[in-house]
């Protein structure tokens, strides 16, 4: 159960819509979650599930004229939706920070590492540039960059992918933010480097007590880092539970599909079980359950409930919610038959 006093970020019924020439794209629909200080929430889903967009909305980085954001975002008790953009800007990079998927394109190619880090300090602190550079060097050392003095004067293209992501992390954490949003931080990296970056995030989280919202499609990363998991599909939250529950007792066919798509060395089968079909277009959302068109179990639901209305996000246990028309006994039966999770 969440400790209310410890909640740093609370998102309530967040909706994000983009008006395009083809119509309105419902990128995020009624998403709610809470993140506690020092804890990690993983938002999991395929591309186009709205996981990145919802975080960009939290950061106040969706400013396009065609974007409509509604709902509530409380950061440290302060409402950010509809707040003065200037106020939100002051929080960004200071109290809440973000790192991105591809560190090469996310770092400015024309400025040195030292300049980019010092800049992040100087936006929020009125100190001398030399002092900011010292702080930058300390932070780089902390994220494990070797020969810092030399790296400070180098450009992003001169570093390896893993080093660049370390630089991004240093830049995000340099002002000691209370919340870090990590948008697929390891996706663009080599597997060996991925593990190092995750270790680094874990260490820094412990040291600074930073809350992390980890956006990923990699359940391995989730198992490694997350305390709590929000599974998103087609712009909606479809399951929300502590990380053990997601792996041991998943309650939603889409989550089952995600778990079945993980390659396992111990598995006797030579083929993976991919989820058939592709995610829905956010332009023409299915009327019923977002996952219904790809769901293998919708025949077990009486009538055409799956096709006609979206199931509510209902509590399965006190801290576990799922969105599915299947009854609990049906789910248990399917899980035991298919050996999904632990029973």
């Amino acid at each position, binding site marked *: 159960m969440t400790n209310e006093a410890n909640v740093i970020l609370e998102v309530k019924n967040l909706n994000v819509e983009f008006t395009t020439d083809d119509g309105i794209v419902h990128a995020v629909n009624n998403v709610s979650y809470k993140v506690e200080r020092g804890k990690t929430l993983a938002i999991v889903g395929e591309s186009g599930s709205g996981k990145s967009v919802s975080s960009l909305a939290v950061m106040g980085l969706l400013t396009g004229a065609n974007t409509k954001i509604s709902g509530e975002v409380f950061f440290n008790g302060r409402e950010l939706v509809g707040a003065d953009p200037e106020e939100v800007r002051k929080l960004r990079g200071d109290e809440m920070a973000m790192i991105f998927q591809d560190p090469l*394109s996310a770092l400015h190619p024309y400025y040195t590492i030292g300049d980019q880090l010092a800049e*992040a300090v100087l936006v929020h602190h009125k100190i001398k540039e030399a002092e900011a550079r010292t702080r930058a060097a300390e932070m780089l050392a902390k994220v494990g960059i070797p020969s810092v003095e030399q790296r400070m004067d180098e450009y992003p293209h001169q570093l390896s992918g893993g080093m660049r992501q370390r630089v991004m992390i240093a830049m995000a954490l340099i002002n000691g933010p209370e919340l870090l949003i990590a948008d697929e931080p390891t996706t663009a990296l080599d597997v060996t480097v991925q593990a190092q970056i995750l270790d680094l995030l874990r260490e820094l989280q412990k040291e600074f007590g930073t809350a992390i919202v980890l956006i990923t499609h990699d359940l391995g990363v989730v198992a490694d880092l997350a305390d709590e998991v929000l599974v998103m599909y087609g712009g909606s939250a479809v399951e929300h539970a502590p990380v053990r529950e997601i792996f041991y007792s998943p309650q939603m066919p889409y989550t089952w599909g995600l778990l079945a798509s993980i390659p396992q060395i111990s598995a006797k089968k030579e083929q993976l079980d991919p989820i058939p079909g592709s995610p829905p277009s956010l332009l023409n959302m299915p009327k019923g359950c977002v996952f219904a068109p790809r769901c293998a179990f919708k025949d077990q639901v009486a009538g055409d409930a799956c096709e006609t209305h979206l199931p509510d996000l209902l509590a399965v246990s006190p801290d576990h919610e799922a969105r599915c028309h299947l009854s609990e006994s049906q789910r248990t039966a399917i899980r035991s038959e298919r050996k999904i999770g632990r029973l």
Partner: protein
Amino acid sequence: MVLMLTLLSIVTFLLFNAVPTDPARLTCGKTCTPEIVAANRIRLGLDQPLFVQYMDWIKGIFVGRTYGSGSATFECSAPCLGYSFRNGEQVTTMIVDALPVTLYLALGAFLLWMLVGISAGIAAAKHHGKWQDRTIMGVSLIGYSLPVFFVGLLLLVFVIVRWNLLPYPDYESPFDDPVAFFQTMLLPWVTLAILYAAYYARLTRSQMLETMGEDYIRTARAKGLSERVVFRKHAFRAGLTPIVTSAGLDLAGLLGGAIITEYIFSLPGLGRLAIGAVTEYDLPTITATVLVAAVFVIVANLVVDILYAAIDPRVRLT
């Protein structure tokens, strides 16, 4: 670079020989006899094989050369580009006289259009999709579509002839008479700047819009930088590279002579020199103006490459 210049000089030299007239005949004037033509041919070295002629020409540029032989010789000191067929003047002198005019014209217009064009482009990108953007783009489209001779003549007719706001153009060196200089140059500058500013406004706008979509711009915003800093520091520098390329080459092109503008406003620059030379088959002058213009373009290319490295660290040799 050296190779480029060598190739360039060969092409320019061949141009001299490609003209379907006899250069010796052209130097001869009204009272021409076959004897004088023959004598001129020998005097100008035109009886020599092409290669020797080329070497003489190149030698003239670097160390000077001597025309004729015996008592009828005359010296042409380096850089020697020959003598004008038209008035017997040294081509080098003519170029040296015309060059500053073109230089002032091109640089003045350049400053004006870069200032106006880039600021307009930035303003348009900043207000992308809003009325400011549409106004700037609309105006620039008109500016871009107007031919130089039209704008030039229009300004000439109204500002000078009808409204008498400025005196008739009469070029004076800025060191002799700065007021007259500016009065003469103002309209030519504006004429050229209108065309180029329109182009640079569009170029800057599209560049800025492209870079504003980059990931590192999102990072800059995520750091909490203000839109102003994001725009001026992060986006502008990244969008600058193609603008620098265009600017370098456009300036170089103008330095070779803005023919129409110089003609309309009676500016004694390289462009007018070239057009005069072409109409009168003044081959040494034609060759010289082409050579000068081409050298500007090659030098501009080099300068642009150096600027690239200054702007973009990825281009620098490590």
